[in-house]
């Protein structure tokens, strides 16, 4: 697999960093790939923008920063404004209409998926929103076997919550598949 550079961005509390860690950990532990994940630390405060960079590869990864992501997820309007411009031409830009009103133009495959609303409708617990987001991403573009992701999720959440997360992940996967495109 070619090197894949991913940026998840949003606001504190949306779980984007956890999602990023799960994605990269699954790549490493379950798929035997190389992966790095980093994030910008802010001061403890509400509403600060959060960004996490992930690189997946089969080769060793040195510089861990992502300048031009192949995949960019923006979950607030402000990070969308801030980061939409850095997407690699032809990349995938995933947003959620609940948070972001995407601009018309972008040299990328822009998808706006109503993940949040679906989560609230079908599950009712905003806490699993980030897991559904991961599912959606894999629905659109399966970077590797989605089961690997689900395994990591299962290892990370308390026993009683595995099922809930599974539901959220599957919900996302199905939702994402509707937007799948071949490249």
């Amino acid at each position: 697999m070619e090197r894949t550079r991913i940026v998840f961005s949003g606001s504190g509390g949306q779980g984007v960093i956890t999602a990023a860690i799960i994605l990269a950990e699954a790549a490493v532990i379950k798929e035997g790939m190389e992966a790095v994940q980093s994030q910008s630390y802010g001061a403890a405060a509400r509403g600060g923008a959060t960004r996490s960079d992930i690189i997946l590869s089969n080769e060793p990864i040195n510089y861990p920063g992502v300048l031009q992501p192949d995949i960019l997820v923006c979950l607030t309007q402000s990070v969308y404004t801030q980061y939409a411009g850095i997407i690699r031409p032809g990349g995938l830009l995933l947003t959620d209409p609940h948070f972001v009103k995407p601009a018309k133009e972008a040299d990328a495959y822009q998808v706006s998926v109503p993940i949040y609303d679906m989560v609230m409708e079908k599950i009712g617990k905003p806490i699993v929103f980030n897991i559904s987001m991961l599912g959606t991403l894999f629905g659109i573009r399966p970077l590797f076997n989605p089961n690997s992701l689900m395994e990591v999720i299962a290892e990370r959440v308390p026993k009683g919550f595995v099922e809930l997360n599974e539901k959220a992940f599957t919900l996302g996967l199905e939702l994402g598949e509707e937007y799948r495109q071949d490249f």
Partner: protein
Amino acid sequence: MTKKIKFVQGNEACVEGALYAGCSFFAGYPITPSTEIAELLAARLPQHGGTFIQMEDEIAAMSAIIGASLTGKKVLTATSGPGFSLKQEAIGYACMAEVPCVVANVQRGGPSTGNPTHVAQGDINQARWGTHGDHSIIALTASNHQDIFQMTVDAFNLAETYRTPVILLFDEAVGHLRAKLEIPTEGELHVVDRLRTSLPEGVNYHPYLPREDGRLPMSDFGDVHRYNVTGLFHDMWGFPTADPTYINDLLHHLVDKIENNVKDITRYKEHFMDDAQYVLVSYGSSARSAIHLATERRLRGERLGVLELQSIWPFPKELIREKCDSARAVLVCEMNMGQLTAHVRAAVRKPNRVFLANRTDGKLISPLDIKRSLRMIQGRGV
């Protein structure tokens, strides 16, 4: 046997390395970006009968590991800038009293409180000269998780071998980065155990008399040999003396045991160095970008190599000369105002061919930053 693979922060790689090396005592005080080391050890150490203690400040933490080491334990503390400054007096004590211990400094932006949550490599010279008086020190660093693990094990090994504090100079970028770590199997890496005297009770034991090979066997507090440990200049039993001869000899011993063993202590990696015309000298997270750039440029046929230092102190002068003297230019890539650069310059024959590619704003230096500097010194503009 398949190895255990983990996906962890660099700080956790340090924790894994410490446990592998046999660390059983940690005393610390939280500070960003080193805190995870303390937090993880608070959970892990007692699982194996080891001890974690959060002290009232960094001075106490450093003091506590000194006390614990003397009972025979392998000990660690971890901190960052302001805490590293506070520990300096006690680090000097450990040098003087020859107490093996490891001090991890996960560097952040300084001076002062500075830029606590962002990367810098500004404590290079402080690691060498932070405490008062002549002395010497060992400081290691690493750019990736596997090496953090390895260098942490090496730090414990060197601390035991030379009976001295060893500094681990990590930085925020590698410390917080999450990546793959393969835990070596037991026995795969060499672990140096504490050298204990074999003298039985009643035989005069000299805690500060080096053996022929230069090592000084220790005796645990609580064991049969009762001796004295002090930060004053002392004789071979550890008792204070103001005799000029003893003072001179001890000071030279403290410096020589390290400076005369540069070769043994030096750790480095070469990347594409075979026929390199331009040499990037780097370390820690900066080295990741240097290697990144070299990898990319090699694909285009440019003869660019990276000399990655994994030990900073004692400064590997000979190595630098050997690897750099034939280069057209040397570019030192670091995140400070040129602390290592000055030492590289002092080491090579043509100091005016040594350049600095740096970044001092809290952002990780990127391959592009280095490329720009390289173009400049090649006369190609940015």
